[in-house]
Structures are given as C-alpha cells and as structure tokens.
C-alpha cells in the first residue's frame, strides 16, 4: 500500500457501490426474465475512524452483502470502496493478506464459524500463523486476545474443543479470533442472533468495551434497532439494496423520518407491558429482490406513496442531521 502522507479522518469511503448477482441462468435469460439480483444498488457513505455504524434492515435488504463488500469478500460490480485511501478493487492478491489483517469479520453463528475439530488454541493460532507471527509469541497473543474478550482464566480454554464451550463463550472466541491480529476495522454480522438473551447482553458489553479500548471502527449488521442502538451511534437503514435513511441512532429511534424506518421502529417489541402499540405502518408482502418496483423500491409497501414515487428514484437528501431518500423530504 502507498504510504499515506496524512491520515485522513475517513477510514472507509463507499461511493455508488453496486453488487449484482446473476440468477436464473441461461434459460431464464432466453425467456427474457431478469437475470440479476441487485443486492447492493448504488450505496454511498463514509465511515470516520473510530465510528460505529449500524447497518439495519430486513433479510434480503443487502446489509450482509454490503458488509462483505467492505471486507472485499465479494468483488464489487460497480462503484468504489476506499479503505484507508486505497481502492479495494485495486488491491492485489499479494496485498490482500495485509488488508485482511486490518479488516475482520465477526460471524453470526459461532457454532458454524469455528471448526469443531480444532481446539481453541488451534483456532486462534491459525490467523497468527498466516500473518507470520513466530511460534514463540503465539500463545501469549492468544491469552491476551481471550482476556480482551473477558473469558475468565483463558489458559484453561486453550485445549478445549468448541462443543465444550457455551454459546456465549464460543462467540467470545469468535471475537477473539477477529481481534487477534489487531485490526482497525471490524464488521460484525448479527453477532448475537444465535445466542440466548441472558448471554447476549454480556457479548454486547464485551463488543462495546473492546471497541472503545482498541479504538476500533465498526460496522454492526442487524435487523433489530434495539441492538443497533446499544452499540452504534450512527445507523444506516437499507431496503432492497439502497439506503433509505442515514443518521445518528438516537434521532432515528425517537423520530424516524423515512416511512420504512418508521415501520422498523414501530415493529420492535418492547419488554414493557404498559407500552402501547400502533398498527404497523407498512404494507404486507415481502419484497422481491428480482423484481424491485420502479422509482422508489419501497413504494409498494409505503403508506405515503404517491405518483412521483413510481416515476423517480429518490436520492438521499440532507434533512437536519440525517440523509433521507424519500420524496416526502
């Protein structure tokens, strides 16, 4: 990588990113059916160093695809992503290892993310080995990483196997593996969705603590605004591959502007029996990513849709502290 003359405030810069997957194959193409799913379709945002950003949306909204693009786990179809000033699509294979040590993924399901035949020591040694850390230093680094994620008495875990650990302990190991090479940037993809609520809180607290202590820049992917709010000061709401709203999490929680964000906020159940609930302000039916509506992709479920929404794609516009992609603003 080039030696940056001056470190910019922005660590990740996404400009008009697109990720299109071909689907259906040749026969569908012959019958004239659409052959791409636009998982990410023209997304732009910057992430400042040390910022935590939530990517919020339902299944199929492109949030996981966006996360994978940020880590160069997918090849971008269009647009660009710059990481620390370097364009990701131009990073060569040889330099990829260097990038991987700086940007890491925390997986959703700890039971799938770790090889059941590897002991915890072997699981955590692998990234160190790949990064060329000498054998003599590895054990020390492993213990430090496990301490970082607050596994008490880490030494006794080294020779255990994944099935001997609880879900919460295992998710901490997954986190330790992502952090062991001291990355600057982590993408956490629904890291607590497979865990019991009673242990969720512990894992989220560790995530917050580690992020603050290491000054990490983080992306937290989830469909649950209550969780995103707990770890991120800023939230980007996605729907069918596009950004609907982008702004400070507290503003989004208390005063959602985009009609889709309003529905997402209203849908979150609250553990308080006296909380009143309004009917959901959203139309039925799951979005079909192969056949998104013209104009605004949300318009067929939007209670406020009007003629202009079908004709014209709304561009993100600044509204106070936020960006909102809706013709109402």
């Amino acid at each position, binding site marked *: 990588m080039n030696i940056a003359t001056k470190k910019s405030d922005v660590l990740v810069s996404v400009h008009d990113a697109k990720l299109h997957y071909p689907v259906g194959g040749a026969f569908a193409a012959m019958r004239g059916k659409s052959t791409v799913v636009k998982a990410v379709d023209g997304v732009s945002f910057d992430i400042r160093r040390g910022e935590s950003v939530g990517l919020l949306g339902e299944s199929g909204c492109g949030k996981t695809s966006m996360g994978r693009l940020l880590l160069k786990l997918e090849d971008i179809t269009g647009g660009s992503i710059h990481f620390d000033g370097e364009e990701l699509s131009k990073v060569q294979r040889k330099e990829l290892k260097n990038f991987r040590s700086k940007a890491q993924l925390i997986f959703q399901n700890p039971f799938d993310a770790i090889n059941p035949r590897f002991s915890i020591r072997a699981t955590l040694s692998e990234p160190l080995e790949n990064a060329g850390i000498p054998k003599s230093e590895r054990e020390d680094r492993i213990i430090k990483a496990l301490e970082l994620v607050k596994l008490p*008495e880490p030494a006794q875990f080294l020779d255990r196997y994944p099935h001997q*650990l609880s879900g919460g302990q295992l998710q901490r190991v997954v986190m330790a593996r992502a952090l062991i090479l001291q990355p600057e940037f982590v993408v956490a993809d629904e890291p607590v969705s497979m865990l019991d609520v*009673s242990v969720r809180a512990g894992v989220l607290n560790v995530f917050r603590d580690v992020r603050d202590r290491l000054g990490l820049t983080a992306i937290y992917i989830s469909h649950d605004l209550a969780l995103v*709010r707990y770890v991120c000061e800023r939230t980007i709401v996605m729907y069918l591959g596009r950004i609907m709203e982008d702004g400070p999490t507290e503003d989004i929680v208390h005063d959602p502007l985009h009609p889709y964000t309003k529905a997402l906020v209203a849908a*979150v*159940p609250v553990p308080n*029996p006296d909380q009143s609930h309004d009917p*959901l302000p959203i139309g039925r039916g799951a979005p079909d990513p192969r056949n998104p509506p013209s104009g605004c992709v949300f318009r067929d479920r939007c209670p406020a849709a009007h003629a202009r929404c079908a004709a014209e794609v709304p561009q993100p516009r600044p509204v106070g502290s936020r960006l909102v992609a809706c013709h109402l603003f």
Partner: protein
Amino acid sequence: MTEQLLSVRDPLLSVRDLRVSYQVGRNFVHAVDGASFDVPRGSITGLVGESGCGKTTVARALTRVIAENATISGGQIMFDGKDLAKIPEKEMNALRWRDIAFVPQSAMNSLDPVYTVEYQLGEVLRRRGGMNRKRAGARSEVLFEMVGIDRGRLSDYPHQFSGGMRQRVAIALALALDPKLIIADEPVTALDVIVQRQILDQLKELQTRLGISVILVTHDISVVAYICDRTVVMYAGKVAESGTMHQTLTAPSHPYSMGLRNAFPDLQGAASGILTPIEGAPPNLANPPAGCRFKPRCPFALDICGSEPPVIDVAPGHPVLCHRASESASLRIEAAKTETWMGKVGMNQMETARA
C-alpha cells in the same frame, strides 16, 4: 375482559408436577422436573426461559410427541377431564390436531418440501378430519384466508414461500381442525422484526376471534409483553414463577425473572441504559446443583438456598419458587442495579457451562 380470564378458575389445561426425563447412556437427564402451571381458556400463555431450561420439552410433552429416549416419568396433564400423561396412545392420537395442535419451531421443517401446501393441508383435513376432497379444498381456502395468504398460492410448494409466509402456513395447518389449544414453539424467533410483528398480530387476532388458547414458547420477554396474558417462567426444568403477564413483568419475583428483564434492550428506554447479563449458564440437568438450581448464578443466594426452595404465593395466582420470595419487593430494587449482578459468578461459570 382480560381480568376475567386471568382468574384461573376453570383452566383448559392444568399441569401438575410434570416430570420428563431423557435417557442418555446409563444416565437420566431430568429435563422437566416437577413443573406445575395452568392455561386458562381463551388466553395466550407465554412459556419463557433460556435454551436448555425445558420449555420445549414441556411443550412437546403436552402432546406426547417426545423424543424416543424421553419418557413422561410423573405428574398430570389434565385437559378436558382427561389426564394426557396417562391415556392410551390411541386416545392421545385422536386428540392431536383436533384438540391440541402444534406449531413447530422451524416452519420449513414442519412442511414436506416435495408436496404442495394444498396437499399437506388436505392430508390433515381428510385423514384426521374425515373430510372428502371437496370439503377439504373449501376448508383449505378458508384457512388460507384466515392467515392472510392469497388462496391462489395453495398449489405452491414450501420453498416458494418466504419465511414469514411459511410460518403462516404452519399456523393454518395447526388451525385446520379447530383445535382448542395451539402450542407454538418459538414461532417468530427466526423472523425479521416486521414479519415477526405481523405474525404475532395475526396469531392474537385469530386467538381472540376463535376463542382458543395458545401456549407460546419463547425466550423473548418482549414478545411476551406484546401478546401474552399469562407467563410461566422456567429455569432448569422447574417453573421459577408464573402469573399474569403484568405480574411477572412489572413485578418479577424470582431473581431469575428479574435478571432476564435486565438483559433486554428497551427501544423506548433511556439511551444510557446498560444491559446486564446473567453470568454463567443453566446447570447441566444430568447433575443439577442441590437445592435451588439458580443458586450458582443468583446474586441473592443465602446458605438456605442449598435446600429445596418452597413455592410461595407472592400474590393470588402468582406462585414463586424461591426461599426469598417474600422479600421480592426489596430484591427487585437491588436487582435493577448492574453492580448487583457483576462478578457474582466468576469461578462457577466454568462448572455450569453446558458440557
């Protein structure tokens, strides 16, 4: 109306001292170890707890659809004057679908991928309900309408439905023969928040309209707060606490229920709120701790907790399995503080981690 159904005078289902054990090698794991609770008519009862606390085993035992190595080793399941724990299998089988229906955890697994949804609905209606093809067809259309799916989709295969739609199909299947009780095992856990809310609304609407009862197995107390009339909190194979949803959520009286409440993010709560986990994990039921099973994780445990806890009614219809239940009001104040739960476990955490 709610007040009326909450006095459990004539319950639809009454479970007393239910015991279910799994044989694992030479050992017996007592997954359910003396559970008692009532399900009122025309209500939704939430069965809450962490994984491995026995809530799914209870749900399955109620229909006697349990694993091969499991046995109902004691207790009563009174339903409509019959003890479901004792009646012959033939009689039990006649009750399934007609009186008690089950909505399993993953709707994808409950539907056969090689048959159309119409065929699978028809199979239940014809073989269980004795309907002819024509009546079954008409009933299928009614059922689809009830759960809000276009009838034109009856001829689709399960994979053509989204996750939420499949869950609706599973609910339609459960409603097929007008049961009195539906047991739904984590029906919305794998779904997005919006779909989750839509399914819960649908379930509530159908439950009210048809006047049936629902047992909702869930680990999510926000779901309980949204939809349930009553709560049964389970921990390590026992009922820690049961009562009306309001009693158990606004005045939780077992330390475990208090801990669960702290662990939940509240979107309407203060932004600075800290989530407090209950450190450790439920005990290994092959070898549970003596006395109160929550003792190793409980910040309020005393020496006396090493002996079997009593069931104390903290309010009418609100039994709590705890030595200190009578002090619950003051414990609740302590339990709301994060520091109460910090550093309680430490060493114990290792032993209690599920092996």
